[in-house]
């Protein structure tokens, strides 16, 4: 007798997406990172596919509870692909569970690379830059706007990624990762990120010098001379110096220590304030 192929319901897909984007990282740990969160999301898929088959359900849950670590927003794409693969496997047992796990392991790194760059170093920085600016001027709208826009970004992008992963499958995602389009998009977003970064240097680094020289009768204020060369010259030099040291391979924690030592010396000698 021919069976009708199993198909995930719309409700199951919605629950899976939302569980991944909400609870994927809630039990974050050194041993399996987001593994349990991923299994939680897939539990809705497996429950729908194997309603009366405890053995298959157990097998599926164990399969999805392995080591897993990626970026949450763009990582929704992988959750979508795995949901579609689990659906295929339920209809065709020749598809092996190992294949699903290998695919997860192969995609999580590259997707995290793209996701971390876009979510953390671009979207976050631009929205924070705007929010900080408004808050500094005493506007409560700064933090509110930041929260609303960042949540909207995560939900909208995550939703698109999950459903494109589910409908388009692994081939298109692998193509996307390899193809030039994502590189062009990341590069252009990087351009915007660099603009905002340039704007943040003079507005957030606020070191100055209180030094004054007396030349004959005239007292000269060093800061006003520096300002006439390039405004915010000291912040720029400090920024470039730290960037140079980072590129030389210095660890941020060491540089934090260096800043503390430098601040003690420069403050006590009255060179910087």
């Amino acid at each position, binding site marked *: 007798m021919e069976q009708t192929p199993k198909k995930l319901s719309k409700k199951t897909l919605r629950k899976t997406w939302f569980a991944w984007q909400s609870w994927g990282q809630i039990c974050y740990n050194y041993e399996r990172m987001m593994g349990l969160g991923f299994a939680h999301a897939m539990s809705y898929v497996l429950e729908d596919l194997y309603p009366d088959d405890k053995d298959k359900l157990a097998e599926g849950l164990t399969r999805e*509870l392995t080591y897993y670590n990626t970026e949450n927003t763009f990582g929704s794409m992988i959750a979508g692909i795995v949901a579609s693969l689990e659906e295929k496997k339920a209809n065709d047992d020749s598809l092996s569970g190992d294949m699903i796990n290998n695919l997860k392991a192969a995609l999580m790194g590259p997707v995290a690379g793209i996701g971390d760059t876009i979510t953390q170093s671009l979207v976050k920085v631009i929205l924070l830059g705007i929010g900080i600016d408004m*808050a500094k001027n005493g506007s409560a709208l700064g933090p509110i706007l930041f929260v609303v826009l960042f949540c909207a970004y995560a*939900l909208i992008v995550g939703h698109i990624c999950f459903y494109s992963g589910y409908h388009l499958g692994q081939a298109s995602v692998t193509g996307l990762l390899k193809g030039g389009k994502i590189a062009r*998009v990341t590069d252009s977003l990087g351009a915007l990120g660099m*603009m*905002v970064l340039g704007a943040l240097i003079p*507005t957030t*680094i606020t070191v100055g010098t209180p030094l004054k020289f007396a030349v004959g009768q005239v007292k000269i204020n060093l800061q006003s001379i520096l300002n006439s060369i390039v405004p915010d010259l000291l912040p720029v030099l400090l920024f470039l110096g730290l960037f140079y040291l980072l590129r030389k391979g210095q660890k941020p924690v060491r540089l934090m220590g260096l800043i503390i030592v430098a601040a003690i010396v420069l403050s006590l000698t009255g060179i910087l304030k």
Partner: protein
Amino acid sequence: MNTFFIAIIIAALCWLTSSALPMWSRWAFYFGAPLVAGLIDGLLLGQLTYGLQVGATIQMAYIGLLAVGGTLPNEMAIAGYLGVAMTMLSGSSAATGLAIATPLGLLGVLCQNAKMALNPIWVHRADTYAAAGDVRGVRRMNLFASQIVPFITYFIPAFLCVYFGGHYFAAFMAALPVQITNILMLIGKMMPALGLAMLMQVLAKKSTIPFILIGFALAAYLKLDVMAIAIIGTGLALLHYYYMPQGGHRDGTDAKKA
């Protein structure tokens, strides 16, 4: 408001934003912790403008900080919600706030490590539930058991710090000699440079260097605010996209690899 309730709310914020809120909202509440804390702590302590200024100042130092592979060198929930509250309770200036928040954030890394190291307990119990096909058991471990360690490592220390420490902290900050306060403030002013340098390390490519110069000039000379610069930046980024060769800039050497 009663100190007890303020301490409860701030402690709950440290715990929820570091571990319990849905991840799609934690991006904002966690990575923007000091900024958001400026609003919430400011309202709680009845000094909104002061709170916003402290929050914005502390946030600047963390703007470039990235969690690579999921771990941060500084715990943002503690530095944010607790750091802003302690700064405000001690009546310190916004610039000093950074020197209060950063050490707290460094201690907070211990809270984070404890959670990451102890949570495998629940993962192993989830393994047992999974092997039995118990879907609810697996979900219970993920949603609820996972909160036991963070509650102990985040909620309790933060509560004790605000409830018992707030009063002494004010006296402590007031007794500090002016030289020490000056040093703390200078650290606070220099710290943002490190975050921005870290960001530059991720973003810098040969083909995007011109944009940092434009952004700098617009802010330093024309005094435009970040929103205006972001709008101009979006326009330029679109031009950059349209006029880019297929497959991106081949000459664009990655700063990390260079």
